[in-house]
């Protein structure tokens, strides 16, 4: 360990402090200093601080104001700021606006499609319900035709003598299936089968499309209300129309 500061060591310390040592000299000095005592290290420290002060011998020149900002920007922690990004990229926001319009258009089209689809589904439900009702009526008619207890009653126009409809009456079950042309029963009304002055039967009306049967000529649709004119045979049966 060095115990005294030789001129050679001081030369090296001074040249090191002022940056005048060559690379090889600098390495050699650092090795010397590592093995030197506190006295040498303090001298080294003082010479370095003296050299640091020499900077004040430079004429004072104020750095440009922007330099401070550049340094802070270059060392800023990396964080993502959307507003800063938009400013940096000079984004006017038009892409966001058009994106919003496109999204709204898409949502509107979707809503319209959904409403349209719902309407179609309701129509389909109604059609299915109508078909189901027709199937139920057909099944009831078929059951009535094969029912051994059922009696067939023809519904005849007294004036012309023509048969416009039929009824299958089950006395035991007190039920009747009445088959009439669709044109004879106004929409929203149904039929009730009964013999004169007796309790009406539990009646199922089956409408037959008007073009499938021969409707009474020249008679208004409400002619069915004059059910007495359609005289059933042979038991004086009559049809009543009600809601």
């Amino acid at each position, binding site marked *: 360990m060095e115990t005294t500061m030789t001129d050679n060591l001081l030369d090296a310390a001074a040249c090191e402090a002022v940056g005048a040592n060559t690379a090889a000299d600098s390495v050699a000095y650092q090795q010397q200093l590592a093995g030197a005592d506190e006295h040498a290290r303090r001298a080294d420290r003082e010479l370095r601080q003296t050299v640091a002060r020499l900077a004040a011998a*430079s004429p004072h*020149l*104020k750095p440009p104001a922007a330099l401070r900002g550049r340094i802070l920007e270059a060392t800023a922690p990396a964080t993502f700021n959307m507003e800063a990004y938009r400013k940096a990229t000079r984004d006017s926001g038009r892409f966001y606006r058009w994106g919003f319009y496109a999204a709204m258009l898409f949502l509107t089209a979707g809503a319209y499609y959904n409403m349209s689809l719902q309407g179609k589904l309701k129509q389909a439900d109604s059609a299915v319900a109508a078909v189901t009702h027709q199937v139920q009526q057909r099944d009831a008619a078929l059951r009535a035709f094969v029912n051994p207890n059922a009696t067939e009653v023809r519904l005849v126009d007294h004036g012309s003598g023509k048969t416009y409809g039929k009824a299958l009456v089950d006395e035991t079950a007190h039920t009747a299936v009445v088959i009439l042309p669709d044109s004879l029963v106004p929409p929203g009304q149904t039929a009730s089968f009964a013999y004169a002055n007796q309790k009406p039967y539990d009646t199922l009306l089956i409408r037959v499309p008007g073009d499938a049967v021969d409707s009474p000529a020249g008679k208004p649709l409400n002619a069915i209300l004059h059910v007495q004119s359609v005289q059933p045979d042979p038991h004086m049966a009559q049809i009543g129309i009600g809601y």
Partner: protein
Amino acid sequence: MNRSRPESAQLLENLQRMARGEHAALAHAYDLMGTVVFSLAVRMLRDRPAAEDVTQDIFVQIWRQAANYDTSRGSPEAWIMMIARTRILDRLRSRSAGIVLKPVGDNLPDAPDAEDWPDDLAISREDAVNVRRCLAELPPDQKHAIELAFFDGLTHVEISEKLNVPLGTIKTRIRLGLIKIRDRLKELMGEEPVAEPLAAEE
């Protein structure tokens, strides 16, 4: 350095805060040392745009290496100036080998009395006045050798060749000049004089 100045204490505190990752401390450190570093860079590089670039590099390095600062190895100002000089010298030496340095002070404002020096820097106006006074009091050959090393970034070998003076003489001039500045600064700043006689006459 005059460690009793509040600016110097602030610089130390800012270095410690930077070591903990407080970015705002770098801004404060720049306010205390930015002018000193930039002035030195302009003086050494004689090129303002290059001085701006290297000043930025220096403070980026200070920010990254603040945790490496060790108070036992010198004042924060000395540590920062050591980094600054190293970076500026790197920039100087990366220039083409054929560059001819202009005389010291060429195209730079003269400020012999340091009246231009702001008083809110880590290196105070008083420091600036005293340093310039110490340099002015040096024998011309010692002053010249120190200026060529410090401001122009020449090695002792290059100074020897440039001045056509033996290498040993250049080393001695640098040593004597620096020791005179150190002792004179202590005297001017009212600090304790160096106990042991380190200086030897050339």
